[in-house]
């Protein structure tokens, strides 16, 4: 648009402008970067975040390919539900030096089920729940926050009252109560939890919208005749994307811990299905005799939550306009 308009704005003089422009081009070789390029570059320079992303992807791939998902078979021979005799007294056959995986790298539980397969099953469930919670909560939060921040009115009043109510309820309490409605299905549980944790994101998005809708560029867009939909989706939402993405990531990390806590208390995922929190609850009493039943699921929870938190931190730094340490 700017290119087509330039000839009209600058009347053609006797001196041709072309050589001067190319001279400038050669002198300043810095090309302006788009917002997306800037963010990607800052993110890729954040070592912790990259490491976190790698760990998270490894856990995801390991969990979903090893025992298979959606009816597809995985590369791991054992099933998480088959019982059998104990090898090595049920202890882990995994050893780092000499490197040996063995038949049951994470050991077996008291009825001889392969603990690696069980942990992978739990990891699948916990990741699925966390991602679904993140998705549902982000979608709800963005819609409610955007509508209440942009249109104000009764939606805003309702949102503020709902968040007021949520402020007085400890999250674990309401999540536990709601968790009992899910009848143990992981997806149902995730949906219900997602419908609980959106309020903080909605408040943040509302705040962003409240400040952005008063900005000059929104006024300019309106003056050019843009409708509300166009202003929201083309002008305001892209500008608040940073807040949304960062908080979606942190919601996922929070959801993993929330789900495992609920399953530990017995209000989350129910048998016959399992999750990392449920595994820990099931084998808590076996700690003194079979500590590995306790260690593996815990290590997976910590690894996933930690990596997601690091990714969130990297994203926050990448989106932060005040960030000066890593100059793009």
């Amino acid at each position, binding site marked *: 648009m700017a290119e087509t308009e330039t000839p009209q704005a600058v009347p053609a003089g006797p001196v041709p402008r072309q050589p001067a422009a190319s001279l400038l081009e050669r002198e300043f070789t810095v090309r302006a970067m788009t917002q997306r390029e800037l963010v990607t570059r800052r993110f890729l320079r954040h070592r912790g975040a990259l490491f976190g992303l790698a760990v998270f992807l490894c856990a995801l791939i390991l969990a979903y390919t090893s025992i298979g998902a959606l009816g597809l078979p995985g590369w791991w021979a054992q099933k998480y539900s088959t019982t059998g005799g104990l090898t090595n007294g049920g202890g882990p056959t995994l050893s780092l030096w000499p490197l040996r995986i063995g038949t049951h790298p994470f050991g077996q539980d008291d009825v001889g089920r392969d603990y690696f397969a069980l942990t992978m099953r739990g990891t699948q469930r916990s990741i699925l729940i966390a991602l679904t919670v993140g998705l549902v909560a982000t979608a709800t939060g963005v819609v409610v926050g955007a509508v209440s921040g942009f249109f104000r009115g009764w939606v805003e009043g309702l949102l503020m*009252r709902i968040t007021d109510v949520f*402020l007085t309820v400890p999250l*674990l309490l309401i999540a536990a109560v*709601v968790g009992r409605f899910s009848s143990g299905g992981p997806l149902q549980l995730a949906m219900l939890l997602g419908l609980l944790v959106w309020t903080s994101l909605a408040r943040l998005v509302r705040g962003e919208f409240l400040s952005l809708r008063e900005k000059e560029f929104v006024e300019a867009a309106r003056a050019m005749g843009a409708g509300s939909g166009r202003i929201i989706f083309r002008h305001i939402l892209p500008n608040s994307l940073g807040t949304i993405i960062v908080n979606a990531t942190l919601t996922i990390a929070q959801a993993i811990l929330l789900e*495992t806590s609920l399953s530990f*208390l017995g209000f989350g995922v129910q048998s016959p299905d399992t999750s990392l929190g449920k595994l*820990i609850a099931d084998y808590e009493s076996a700690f003194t005799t079979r500590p590995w039943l306790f260690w593996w699921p*815990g290590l997976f*929870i910590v690894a996933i*939550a930690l990596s997601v938190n690091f990714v969130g931190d990297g994203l926050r730094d990448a989106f932060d306009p005040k960030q000066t340490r890593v100059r793009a």
Partner: protein
Amino acid sequence: MAVFVVRRLIVSFFILLVSTFLIFVLVAHSGDPYGDLRGDHSPNLPQKMAHRTAILHLDEPDPQRYVRWLGGAAKCVVPGMTCDLGRTVHDQDVTALLGQAVASTLWLVTAATVLAVLLGITVGIVSALRQYSGFDYTVTFSAFLFFSLPVFWVAVLLKQYLAININNWYDDPRVGPVAALVLALLSGLTWGAIVGGPGTRRWIVRGIAAVATFGLLMYLSAVDWFARPALGPALIVVISCGIAVVVTELVSGLRRRGVLYACLITAGIGSVVQFLVTPWLQDAKWASWTNVLLLAVVAVVVAAAVGYALGGLDRGQAVRASVLTGLGIGSVIVVDEILRAVPAYSNAVGGRIVATIGSQTPDFTGTFWQGVLDQITHLVLPTLAIMLISFATYSRYSRATMLETMNQDYVRTARSKGLTERTVVMRHAFRNALIPLTTLAAYDFGNILGGAVITETVFARRGMGTLFVMGLSQTDPNPVMGFYIVTAVSIVIFNMISDIAYAYLDPRIRLS
């Protein structure tokens, strides 16, 4: 102000009304209230079912049940009437159950909050002052780790691993030379990172800290101190003087002689008074929390008077520093009494001093201080488990606010006026960095209560959390509502206090 409080109270009342109704209906429909009777084939099953219907009013519609509960709960605030929070499925009185549970949970939550706030803010401020140092990176990483730790996992780990190991070690409580060496190196590294400064100074600090730690551990093991711990009068005098110097340095700097003398004299009075107070504290009839609190009040009054008399131009600072010193010395004397109770307590519980179950040893009879020690040993692990996450929050948050205040123009102005770094940090930056933390404290309270639910389950403490878990798993609304009403009211009050405190601390904010 009054208008603000009244308006907030009215709004909160309606919010509580809505949320209690919501929770009541949700809990009532979260499962089958006759669940445990379904497999029952005894001939009097119909009577049992009828009894449960009668105590939970299951034959009435939800709003009517809720109003019934609300009517009972309203009696708590009407003077002259006794609370009635309904009965459990097992026909127990919820009010009575809650009465015992609140105290247990309150201890846990208070201890965790206080420790998390103190430690978190200190560590956060130090890591902000040493930004991008090894200490800062370590703290940042640990904070991330603590954020990602599931409370229940940590709790089980502490219970099954740490507690058992400490108890095993306590059979023969000595620190071997190798362990002492490792601890000494760690202590050297930590202190070096905290103190900071140029290379040589850090190495000196590291060396001193390591040697001191090693020497101390070896000496304590040699005299078998861990089996019979105590501070003793001489050490109390030394510690008192140390507290006086440190407090003066932090509050006003050692160059303010009036403040320093006030603190030292308070320390001196404390050192003398300990001989007077110790027999009272060891007297079985005299020792009690009321009397200890009474002593604390006396200590504050005396210390304030000393500060007022000696403060001179720095009267305000002198009073503040002196009171802090007085309270510090009082705590040292109390700690000494508790430590002295260790050998007898250890005998009473068979040498397993770190308790893993319950909130007190059943049928424990002992002196007042042994009772206190008993409560402490039961509190240590659950408190630690809850504290970790809050600690991470506080340290991250206070680091961020401290960094922000250190970059403010008024801090640069203070520096350019020629003020010492101590004054800039403590009087200009630190105080302003604390203001936003008041909001965090109120918000974090809900999290801590959630953590309490989990740790109480793991450590089998009979608190509000266990009441909640049991009530919910039996689809029994009354105990859950008992837990919720206490929680919600305290959260509302906390939020209000934090708003008022915010407005008081930051004059730019006007209430109402």
